[in-house]
């Protein structure tokens, strides 16, 4: 992995949110430095509120950091770019556009492809995410999982060099989520994109990625990185292997410690003490 050039380099990223009536800002991210190699699949995991979405918004170019910078292919970003596409946590589809028109939407806005290319790419990516036959459906006529596939197709169809994904499967039921994970790996293996995938689910991160970056909270910061050594292609059976579970346990221990420190996880003692009170 060290041999591949870095695609994305974040250096010393900090972001603070000032709330009305609060004397101090919320330190959403403090001094985060990380890099992602070309073609690498990296997951960020961490408890909610640790700044995952904030980091992704900064990488997307929707949010300016208070300190630090992000370089993509050696060039500092100053806003959204044609080299990136973001899959949001909520599908964020235009309700008045059909599946087809939502998938073409990102391409229309980026103005990277001409009209006939847009049509071809849309048709191709709708098939890729398994939505052939639903081109004329409106978002309200699709299940949550299908909407999320449209969201994914919209981003993939723009042919980004980096795919940024913010807990894209968090709102799905467990079964759909597993299928989508396997499907994402299948698509990724063909497309060979660089992926930054945010999740709060450790097994999802370990299953998908080459490397798991654990964020801590209060203040939001980078805590530790784990290499994920499992060979590819991976199937869902991997999730039951002992070495997989060992890795997940290791990451979980770190996050639990983080949660306890931040008061997110209550110790048995505190719980019983409260019950008595």
């Amino acid at each position, binding site marked *: 992995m060290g041999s591949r050039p870095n695609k994305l380099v974040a250096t010393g990223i900090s972001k603070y949110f000032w709330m009305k009536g609060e004397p101090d800002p919320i330190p959403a991210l403090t001094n985060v430095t990380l890099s992602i190699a070309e073609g690498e699949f990296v997951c960020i995991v961490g408890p909610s509120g640790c700044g995952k979405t904030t980091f992704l918004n900064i990488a997307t170019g*929707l949010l300016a950091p208070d300190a630090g910078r992000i370089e993509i292919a050696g060039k500092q970003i100053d806003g*959204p770019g044609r080299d990136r*596409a973001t899959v*949001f946590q*909520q599908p*964020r589809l235009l*309700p008045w556009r059909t599946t087809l028109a939502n998938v073409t939407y990102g391409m229309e806005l*980026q103005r990277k492809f001409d009209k006939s290319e847009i049509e071809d790419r849309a048709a191709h990516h709708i098939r890729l995410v398994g939505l052939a036959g639903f081109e004329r459906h409106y978002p309200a*006529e699709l299940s949550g999982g299908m909407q999320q596939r449209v969201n994914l197709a919209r981003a993939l169809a723009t042919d980004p060099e980096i795919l940024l994904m913010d807990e894209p499967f968090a709102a799905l039921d467990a079964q759909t989520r597993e299928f989508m994970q396997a499907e994402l790996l299948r698509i990724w293996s063909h497309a060979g994109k660089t992926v930054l995938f945010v999740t709060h689910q450790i097994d999802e991160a370990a299953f998908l990625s080459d490397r798991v970056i654990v964020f801590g909270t209060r203040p939001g910061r980078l805590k530790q990185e784990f290499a994920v050594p499992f060979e590819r292609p991976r199937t869902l059976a991997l999730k039951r292997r002992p070495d997989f579970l060992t890795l997940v346990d290791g990451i979980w221990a770190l996050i639990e410690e983080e949660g306890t420190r931040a008061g997110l996880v209550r110790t048995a003692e505190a719980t019983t003490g409260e019950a008595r009170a």
Partner: protein
Amino acid sequence: MNADGQVSVIPADAGAAGAEPVRPTESFYQRNEGAIVGSLSVVFVLAIWQAAWSAGRIDPLFFSGPSAIFARLWDGLFGSGDILEHLAFSAQNFATGFSIAALVAIPLGIVLGWYRLPRLILDPFINGLYSTPRIVFVPLIVIWFGLGFASKAFIVFLSAFFPILLNAMAGVRTTDDELLGAARSFRATQWDLFRTVVLPSTVPFIIVGLRQGLAHGLIGVVVGEFFAGSKGIGYLVGQAGMMFKTDLLFACVVIVAGAGIGISAVLQRVEGYFQSWRPSSN
């Protein structure tokens, strides 16, 4: 479904009979329930009213009956044509005032919804004018525009303008930030944002504004003609009242109500056209 040899709990012959999906059929009544029930209830009320009128239980000085109103309406429109003349004048007043109000208020509302500074500058005036009953401006408008067409059209304009403006503003301001963010992430320009996100999500608000503006505008035209001038449905209402011509008075009411219902129905069609993506529900 169990090509991979999985055991299915559905008996193998379950698909043999009656498994073809069938679109649920709706009877004529189910499809038109609203229209049927509504018409019946109107017919019922009219029948009772007419019965009381025919039986001589209603004093024509204070009230009228359906047959008399209809006869007066028919004569006024297609016979002597005395109502038609006033109706044409009112319709012209209304159409002019309402069209100008829509043409100005929709773009202005969108601009004020989208740009902060102009909104902050104009907000106090808009709120002040909107909260003031428009009737108090009638004498002033008469001083400015005289007793004829221009002053009536202006009253309609003033009445319809604010509901349209405020709804358009609200529509733009309630545009989903998440959708805007998604569009921005794909490098949407300001114009892209407006064209693909703001405008489509504001259309329903604009339609609501037009419907409210329509109601206010109809009040405006009647009130304006009632208070000043010698022509129009509003003037006719005043005359009919003073001379206890209740059949004429009710005929005017029917006309104004009909205009409201008619234009409202047109707007509903327009709205339906823009809302075809919404899942249908009754």
